[in-house]
C-alpha cells in the first residue's frame, strides 16, 4: 500500500511537471480540479502589439480546441496585460494580470475555459496600482499567492472568492542600495519559494547574490531569506516568466537567474538549484552562461536565458539571449534577432542549439509543451508564430500557427 501510494504520487508529480505550468509543482494539497468531463483540452496562446508611443501596448489571448495550423489574428482575443504572460494553473484557471508597467486597471482576472474553448470570467481581484503583479501560484482551491514587484509584497488571496487574505511584506529583505522585487514563485512541501530581484534604479543588480524568500504557507510568514554569494550569479528568476522557477522529477527546484540581462559583464545569468529537502541553494551546482559553451552557437556563450520550460527527463528548453548574434543587438532590441532556441541538459550541464529553429527577437519568445512536442513562439525574420520541436526525432516544423503580433505565450491543456 505504501509502495502504491508512492508510485501514484510519483505519477501525479510527473504529470504535473510535464505540463510546464508554473505551479504544477505542488502536489499536496491539490486545488480542486475542474471535472474532467468539462475540462478544456485545447491550447491557449497570447500575442502582444506595441502602440506607436512604444512604451505601452496590448496583449491578447486565445483558445483553440487543438494546435491547429493556420493564421490567427487577434479579433477574437481576450485582452491581457502588456509585458506579462497569462498564467494557467493546474486547477484549469487562467489568470490575467494588468500591464506590467501600470496605466491599466489594477486588477487580476481569473478566467475559466469551457470545453468548447469559451472564456469565462470567474472573478476579479483588485490589487494596488503600480503593483507590477508578475506571477501567481495556487496552493489549493482557497489560497494562492501573487508577487507584486512594484511594492515588494507577496499577496495571499482566495482564488475562489478572489478576495485578499494577507500581504507578506518582503521590503525588509532589500539590499542597502536596491529595492526588493518578488518575482517568480513555486510551492514545495507547503513552502513558498519566492525569487527575489534586488534592483537598483536602473532595474539592474548591484551584486552577485542569488536570493529567495521562503514563506510558510500555513502562517504566511517569511521563514528564511536564502542568499548565495558563492556561485557568481544573480537576479533569481525572470519576473514575467513564471516558468523560470520549476521542479524536476526529483523535486529539486531549479532557478533561472537573469544576471544583468547581459548588460553588465560582471553580473551573470545561468541556472542554479535547491535540492529536495533543502532550503539552500546547492553550492555545488550551477550552469553559468559565461562559463558554459553553447554547442552550435558561433558566439560560444549566451548572455542569459530569456525564457525556459522544463520538458521532463532533465531537459530544459530555453531561449538563449546572445547579443553577438546581431551586430545591432544591444542597440535595437525591437529589431534585433538575438534569441536562439536551445536545449539544456540539467544533468550534464550542457547547452546545445536546436538546429532548424529560427532566431527570434526578444519580444516574441514563448515556450510550451504540446503532447510530446515542445512549442516555441518566435518573432523572426520570416514569420511570427509557433514552431514545434520533437525531442525524440529532433524534427522542427513551422510555423504551425502564424499570428499577428509577437507570440508571447503558449500553453496546452492536453495531456
Amino acid at each position, binding site marked *: 500500500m505504501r509502495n502504491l501510494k508512492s508510485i501514484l504520487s510519483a505519477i501525479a508529480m510527473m504529470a504535473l511537471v510535464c505540463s510546464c505550468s508554473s505551479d504544477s509543482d505542488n502536489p499536496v494539497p491539490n486545488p480542486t480540479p475542474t471535472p474532467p468531463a468539462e475540462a478544456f483540452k485545447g491550447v491557449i496562446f497570447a500575442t502582444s502589439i506595441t502602440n506607436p508611443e512604444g512604451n505601452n501596448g496590448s496583449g491578447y489571448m486565445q483558445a483553440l480546441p487543438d494546435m491547429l495550423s493556420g493564421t490567427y489574428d487577434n479579433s477574437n482575443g481576450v485582452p491581457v496585460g502588456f509585458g506579462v504572460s497569462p498564467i494557467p494553473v493546474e486547477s484549469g484557471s487562467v489568470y490575467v494580470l494588468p500591464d506590467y508597467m501600470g496605466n491599466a486597471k489594477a486588477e487580476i482576472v481569473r478566467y475559466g475555459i469551457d470545453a468548447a474553448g469559451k472564456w469565462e470570467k470567474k472573478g476579479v481581484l483588485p490589487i494596488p496600482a503600480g503593483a507590477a503583479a508578475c506571477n501567481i501560484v495556487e496552493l489549493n482551491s482557497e489560497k494562492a499567492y501573487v508577487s507584486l514587484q512594484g511594492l515588494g509584497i507577496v499577496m495571499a488571496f482566495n482564488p475562489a472568492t478572489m478576495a485578499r487574505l494577507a500581504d507578506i511584506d518582503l521590503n525588509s529583505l532589500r539590499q542597502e542600495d536596491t529595492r526588493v522585487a518578488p518575482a517568480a514563485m513555486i510551492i514545495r512541501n507547503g513552502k513558498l519559494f519566492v525569487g527575489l530581484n534586488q534592483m537598483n534604479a536602473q532595474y539592474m543588480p548591484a551584486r552577485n547574490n542569488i536570493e529567495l524568500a521562503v514563506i510558510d504557507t500555513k502562517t504566511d510568514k517569511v521563514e528564511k531569506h536564502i542568499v548565495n554569494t558563492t556561485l557568481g550569479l544573480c537576479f533569481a528568476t525572470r519576473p514575467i516568466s513564471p516558468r523560470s522557477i520549476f521542479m524536476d522529477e526529483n523535486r529539486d527546484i531549479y532557478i533561472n537567474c537573469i544576471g544583468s*540581462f547581459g548588460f553588465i559583464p560582471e553580473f551573470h545569468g545561468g541556472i542554479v538549484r535547491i535540492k529536495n529537502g533543502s532550503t539552500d541553494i546547492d553550492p555545488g551546482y550551477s550552469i553559468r552562461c559565461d562559463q558554459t559553451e553553447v554547442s552550435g552557437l558561433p558566439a560560444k556563450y549566451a548572455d542569459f536565458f530569456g525564457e525556459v520550460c522544463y520538458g521532463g527527463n532533465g531537459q530544459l528548453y530555453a531561449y538563449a539571449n546572445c547579443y553577438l548574434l546581431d551586430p545591432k543587438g544591444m542597440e535595437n532590441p525591437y529589431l534585433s534577432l538575438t534569441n536562439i532556441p536551445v536545449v539544456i541538459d540539467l544533468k550534464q550541464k550542457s547547452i546545445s542549439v536546436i538546429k532548424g529553429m529560427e532566431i527570434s527577437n526578444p519580444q516574441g519568445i514563448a515556450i510550451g509543451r504540446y503532447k510530446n512536442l515542445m512549442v516555441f513562439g518566435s518573432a523572426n525574420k520570416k514569420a511570427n508564430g509557433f514552431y514545434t520541436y520533437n525531442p525524440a526525432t529532433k524534427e522542427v516544423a513551422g510555423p504551425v500557427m502564424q499570428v499577428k503580433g509577437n507570440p508571447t505565450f503558449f500553453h496546452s491543456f492536453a495531456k
Partner: protein
Amino acid sequence: MARAGRKWLPVLLAWLFGTLTVAAQEAVVYGTITDEKTGEPLAGASVSAVEGRVGAVSDAGGCYRLRIQAGRMQLTFQYMGYKTARRDLTVHDSLRCDVRLRTAENELGEVTVTARSEMRRLKESAMPISVIGQRQLQGTASSINDVLARTVGVTVRNTGGMGSASRISVRGLEGKRMGMYVDDAPMSQLSNFVALNDIPTNMIERIEVYKGIVPYKFGGSALGGAVNVVTKEYPPVYFDVSYEIGSFGTHQVSAVMKRTDRRSGLQFGIGGVCTLAKNNYRMALDNLGGRTVERNHDRFGKIMGGMSLKATKWWFDEMKLELVAMKTRQEIQGIDFDVREAYNHSVNYITALTLKRRNFFLDGLDLDFDAGYVAGRYGLRDKAMHRYDWDGRELPPVSAFGGEQNSFPSDGRNRSGELTAKLNMGYTVDMHHTVNLNIYADRTSLHPSDSLMDRALGFRSNFPSRMNTLTVGFSYDLTLFGGRFQNAFTLKSFLFSSDSRSIDTYSVNEPEPVRVSKNYLGFSDALRYKFTDDLMLKASFNSEVRIPTSEELIGNGYSILASPALKPERTTGANVGLLYRRVKADGGLVEVELNGFYNQLEDMIRFTPDMIPTMARYRNFGSVRTKGVELEAKGDVCPLLYLYANGTYQDLRDVRKTIPGTEVENPTHGMRIPNVPYLLANFGAELHRENLFGGRGQNTRLLFDASYVHRYFYDFEMSKYQERRIPTSLTMDAAVEHSFDNDRWTLTLKMRNLAGRRVVSELNRPLPGRYVGFKVRYLFK
C-alpha cells in the same frame, strides 16, 4: 507657493499701478481695413496722414495702427484695386477708425508703387489657416487652450487642471511636430517651461493656426502645422487689468500697461501675470475600481512679469527690447499613488530684441530681425522616502534613495540657455513678384545636474549638451489677375549639429562623446484663386522635414539613450479647400469653409522602450498616412445672433507593410493610429445686444460653446473584446458677459463643463468637473 503668490501680488500691482502717472503726449489711430462687400480683411492696405508724411500698412488681419500728433487731420486709405477712401478726424489720445474699401477695377492707376512692399503678407492667405479673433478669445474661455480646442482641426488634450501639461495637435500631428510661435517668433526650447497657455487672453490680438504648411517667415522646422499667438498692438495709453476667481481655488490676475512718449517716440510697457490654482477637483480612479478622491497635490503657481521698451524713431521703424522673468512651481498629482511631495520648479529669464525696417537701404526691401536669449533653472524635486496608496498605506519609495516617481529619486538643479535669432528679408520686385529670405538659428545648451539621481543610478547620468540648428528658407510669391491668383513657393534647408556625451549601454562605464551634424532640404507651395469676391479655392503641397529635438537625438543621460543615427521626420502633404465668405446687406457675415487634406509622415520618430525600462531611446519607426476633411460654418443669423459649427474627420493609419528588418507582415498595417481622436465637432452660439438694460456704451453677450469628441481606442483596434478606450465626451460651456462704459469695465460669469460631465484624457487622466468663474476686467485706452 500660495503664500509666495500672496506676497508678490501686491508688489506686482503696486509696480504696475505706480507707473500710471506717466502723462499722455501722443495720439494713435487704429482700426481695421476690410473689403466693403466681403468683409475680408485687406492686408497691405496703406494709411497715410499729414500729407503723406506719416503712414502705416495694414497687417494680415487688416489691422493698422498709426502714431500721430493729436489734433485734426485727414487720413487716406489706399489699396490696389480699391477706391481710395478719406476720413477727417479729430484725435486727442487714441481713436478707432474702421474703414471698408470699395472695389474699383478702373482705378488701379491710383495705386502707387508704395503698395508693393506692403504686399508681402498676402501670401499667407493661400495657406490653410484658421484665425481666432477677439470674439472667441473672451467669453467662456479662460485660456488659449480653451479657445484652440474649439478650432476646426485642432485637438487639445489636457492632462489635468490649471497648469497641467497639454498636447495640442493639428490634424492629428502633435507635440514636437507642431510649431508654437508668439508674434512669429518660435518658442522653441522655451516651450519646455512656458506653454502658450500661460499667455493671458487679454494680451492677445488673435491666434493663427496654420495647418500643414508653416509660413516661411516663422523659421524653424515644424511640419505638422503651427500656432502663432499675435499679441496686441497698443495705443499710446493703455492699461488693462483683470482678475478671475473660480472653482478649485483658481485665481488669475493679469495686467498690462503701455505708455508712449510723444517727443522721443519711446513706448514703455510693463505687465505681469499671476496664476494660482489648487486644482482640488474630485476625480474617479478608473484603474482602482472607479473610487473617487479629491486631488490633493496639484497646486500650481506661476508668476510672470515683464517690461518692454519700443522705439520708433531710431532709424528702424521699430526697435523693441523686452525683458521677462517667470517662476513656476507645480506639484505632481498622483493618480495610481497618493503622491505627497514631488514637484517641478523652474525660474526663467527672457530677453528679446526686435528690429524692423521697411525699405531697408533699398526701396521694397523689408528687414525683420528677432533675437532672444532664454536662461532657465529648473528641475524635478522628488526625494520622498515613502510612497502612499490611496488607502493611506505607507509604501517604500521607488528606490533605496527615495522617490515617488519613475524608478529613481530626483533633485534636479538644471540650467539651460538658448540663443535664437531670426532674420527675414523680403523684397517686393513689383506688384506681381516678391522674394523672401529667412534665416533662423538656434543654439541650445543644457547643463543638467542631479546628484541624488546619480547616486541612485550608481553613475553620473547627467551631462552637458549643445545643439545648434540653422534653417534657411527662400520663397517666391507670385500675384496675378489683380490679386485673384496668389502663389507662394518656399524652399528650405535644414542644418543641425549636436555635441554631447552619453552612456550607450551599461557595459560602458565612461560616457562616450556623441557628435552629429546633418542637413536636409524641404519645400512647400501654396496657391489661392478667387473665383468671385465671395468664393475662393486654396490648394497647397508640402514636403518638409522636422529636425529631431535634443532629447530625441542625444537622450537625457539617464532614462533615454542617445540615437545619433536618427533621421528627421519627413512629411509629404496636400490640402485643397473652398472658402465662401459673404457680407450680408445688414453687415452680418456668413462663412463656410471646406478642406480636404492628405499627409504622409515618414521616418516617424517614436519613443521605444528597451528590455529595461530605463534604456529607452527614440527611433525612426513607422509611417503614418492621414486623410481627412474639415467643414466649418459660421455667421450672423441676425444682428443679435451669431452661430458657428465645425467638424473634423481625420483618419490616421499605420502604413508600414512589414515589420522593419523582416519579411513579416506588420500586424497593424492599415489600422487606425491609436490614442488620436478622429471625429471631432464643435458648436457655439452668441447672443449679443447693446444696452440691453438701458443706458449707453453697454454691451451684453450670452455665449454657449459645445465640444464633442467621439470615443477612440487607446490601443490599436484588434479585438472585439477590447475595452481600453477614451470615452466619447460632450462638454458644454456658457458665459454671460456684460461690458459698460464703452468696454472700460467687463464682467464675465462663466461656467465650463456645464453639466459636470466626467471627462477623461489619455485613458487615465481625469479632467475637472464643472468650473464656475467670475472675471472682472478694467480697460483704459
